[in-house]
């Protein structure tokens, strides 16, 4: 059940637009902190609130209307110079915009927003009352007592029925011009000294609590009980399922599908010719041409369709300066988040799945990465720390960089911490080089700061960041220089729809392995296989790797010893996968298996000869093995990518 019967479409549009607007406001607020007197900026920010308020009014979201209204009044005073911006006021404003965002989230779950935090409302009113009151204020602002009542249908929509008689007002203002049916203002408007009174009079005809007609026939009192609301909030945190696409891109898709239609017609007629026995070289040449053309067009079409899913990552980035700012303020740090490459385009699903890992990395940089201003000064660094968030496309990969100019990470301290937490033993620690040591922070249960959950946390660790990135077939790399800062480099494929795979054979049956995990392919010489602790291993360039046969992973009987090994590298371990033979590499278009999902199968793809191939989910297959501790010989494998 939703509070917005019949208005869901409108609500979705509103939210999408209003979210963008709010992100924009947030960024401008961060800028405003640097240049508090920028009138243009104040004007831009101000404009956001009446806009959201107007839309919210049509959705009957009265609490949102109230909050926007108060914030708007505050900005009106600021832009007119009646109030001055100070840090306390900035906090009030930030709290108000947070309130607006929370209400958007509630609306996103089809629930009318609850009243804003009374403290925020009080702070806003306090800020507004702090200066000599302006006569205009009373007209639109609902009395404070009306606020408290939850049954009040639309506290701020006074004026719908309650504005002064337009004709009379206009003739008063323009000296009678309007009364004649003329709509041209006099060049020199008549002084209006007496007009405010006239309005006051007509406005007074409307009781302040007038029951304005509810535009869409539903009242905010239809709101379901609080408990049900919060339960639903967690349940319905769905994804946005609409997308905005540049019409030029859609036109291209349309154009290409038209061309494909034409080529199909050509092929149909050629087929008729050929079936009728016409197979001279001219016909075959035409067939060859048509098929080549179709080939080209289809790959163009695939590209174009993929592009419709591509969104500039800036839409994601724009939320972060505000988050970084709030956190830095909370921690008493001076941090500027610098964005670049916002125009880089990324698959829409990926943008959504990147949101949390990126927030975590940014919080991590602000919280653990950069130092307090005093410490920075002591080490001769500029007081303001810079956190850089950058996106760019490199070949067929998207690279995201989160860099800070803080104190950097100490491999020794990380190793010590990992030992303390019991994640590795001392022996293992000694074998780790710097890169491997840094990678320890991605282990579940690792965090260098005790208080991690207060700020950086949300109870999510770096291991979740890594897991989420890997789900997108991406990888994370850390570089850190002590005293200079740390850099997290995320590398992602351009799209999730196409997966480069290696086709291996087990008997006659082909299987597809994600190419991103394959390091190299080597022949298995039975004589070089050594038994360590009862497990087969192979030494590759000094590294001892366990040999796991694909047959065993799949639970098939081993008919013959594997002839080839695939050097596989996943996040947790490296190993040699024993297979019978290869069928080459391919760009697989993944089709997920709906309704049932066999363990260890990520999806299926079709080969050019029409054969269906299973794409293996190595992680799942291995986790099964891991539990039986078949992999890794005696010790735990500790190789991080």
């Amino acid at each position, binding site marked *: 059940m939703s509070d917005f019967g019949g208005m869901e479409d*409108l609500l979705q*549009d*509103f939210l999408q*637009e*209003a979210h963008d*607007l709010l992100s924009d406001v947030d960024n401008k607020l961060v800028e405003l902190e640097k240049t508090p007197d920028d009138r243009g900026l104040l004007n*831009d920010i*101000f*404009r956001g609130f*009446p*806009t959201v*308020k*107007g*839309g919210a*009014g*049509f959705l*009957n979201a009265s609490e949102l209307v109230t909050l926007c*209204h108060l914030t*708007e009044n505050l900005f009106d005073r600021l832009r007119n110079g009646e109030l001055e911006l100070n840090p306390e006021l900035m906090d009030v404003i930030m709290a108000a915009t947070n309130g607006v965002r929370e209400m958007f989230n509630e609306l996103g779950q089809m629930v009318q927003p609850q009243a804003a935090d009374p403290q925020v409302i009080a702070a806003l009113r306090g800020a507004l009352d702090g200066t000599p009151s302006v*006569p*205009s204020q009373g*007209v*639109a602002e609902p009395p404070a007592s009306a606020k408290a009542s939850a049954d009040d249908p*639309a506290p701020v*929509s*006074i*004026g*719908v*029925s*309650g*504005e*002064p008689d*337009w*004709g009379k*007002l*206009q003739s*008063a*203002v*323009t000296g009678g*011009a*309007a009364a004649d*049916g003329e*709509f*041209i*203002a006099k060049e020199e*408007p008549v002084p*209006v000294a007496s*007009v*405010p009174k006239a*309005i*006051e009079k007509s*406005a007074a005809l409307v009781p302040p609590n007038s029951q304005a*007609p509810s*535009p869409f026939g539903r009242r905010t009192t239809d709101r379901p009980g609080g408990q049900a609301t919060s339960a639903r909030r967690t349940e319905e945190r769905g994804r946005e399922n609409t997308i905005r696409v540049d019409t030029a891109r859609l036109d291209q898709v349309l154009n290409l599908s038209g061309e494909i239609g034409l080529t199909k017609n050509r092929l149909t007629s050629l087929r008729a010719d050929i079936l009728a026995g016409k197979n001279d070289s001219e016909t075959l040449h035409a067939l060859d041409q048509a098929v080549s053309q179709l080939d080209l067009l289809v790959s163009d079409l695939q590209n174009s369709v993929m592009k419709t899913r591509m969104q500039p990552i800036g839409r994601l980035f724009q939320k972060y300066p505000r988050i970084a700012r709030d956190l830095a303020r909370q921690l008493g740090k001076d941090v500027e988040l610098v964005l670049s490459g916002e125009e880089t385009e990324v698959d829409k699903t990926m943008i959504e799945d990147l949101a949390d890992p990126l927030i975590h990395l940014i919080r991590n940089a602000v919280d653990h990465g950069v130092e307090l201003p005093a410490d920075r000064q002591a080490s001769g660094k500029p007081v303001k720390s810079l956190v850089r968030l950058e996106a760019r496309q490199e070949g067929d990969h998207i690279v995201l960089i989160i860099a800070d100019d803080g104190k950097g990470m100490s491999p020794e301290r990380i190793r010590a911490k990992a030992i303390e937490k019991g994640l590795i033993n001392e022996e293992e620690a000694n074998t780790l080089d710097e890169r491997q040591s840094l990678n320890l922070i991605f282990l579940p249960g690792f965090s260098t700061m005790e208080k991690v959950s207060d700020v950086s946390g949300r109870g999510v660790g770096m291991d979740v960041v890594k897991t989420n990135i890997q789900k997108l077939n991406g990888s994370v790399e850390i570089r850190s220089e002590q005293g200079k800062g740390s850099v997290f480099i995320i590398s992602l494929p351009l799209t999730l729809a196409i997966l480069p795979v290696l086709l291996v054979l087990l008997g006659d049956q082909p299987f597809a392995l994600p190419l991103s995990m394959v390091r190299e392919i080597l022949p298995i010489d039975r004589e070089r296989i050594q038994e360590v602790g009862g497990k087969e291993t192979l030494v590759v360039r000094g590294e001892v790797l366990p040999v796991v046969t694909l047959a065993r992973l799949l639970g098939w009987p081993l008919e013959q010893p594997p002839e080839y090994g695939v050097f596989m590298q996943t996040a947790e371990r490296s190993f040699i996968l024993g297979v019978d033979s290869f069928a080459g590499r391919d760009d697989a278009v993944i089709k997920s298996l709906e309704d049932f999902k066999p363990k260890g199968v990520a999806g299926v793809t079709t080969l050019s000869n029409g054969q269906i191939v299973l794409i293996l989910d190595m992680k799942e297959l291995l986790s099964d093995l891991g539990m039986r501790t078949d992999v890794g010989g005696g010790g735990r494998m500790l190789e991080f990518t």
Partner: protein
Amino acid sequence: MADPKLRILVVDDFSTMRRIVRNLLKELGFTNVDEAEDGAIALQKLQGGGFEFVVTDWNMPNMDGLTLLQTIRATPTLKHLPVLMITAEAKKENIIAAAQAGASGYIVKPFTAGTLSEKLNKIFEKMGMA
């Protein structure tokens, strides 16, 4: 009832709001509606000719509704156009400013198709379009 073919320009920077206004106008039988995202774009469209009615928001980037209204009134070819101002405000000074600038009507968000119809009819009456 005015001519349903009345060519109306809806000006608002918030596309959801344009859609709302458009839907309400449609409910009232007006389907010949075009949209503009701000005052500057609106003015360009209006100067292209053919429009008979303007419904505009107040707060917009580039050129706000009030400036658009003033510009319309100051342009000989456009000054006869009826302009209905839509705003989120019921503040006195805004109402006065709109009246002074020569707005033909003023409507406060949120409103129903009924309210809109009432406002439109008042304007049509005055203009002899009813």
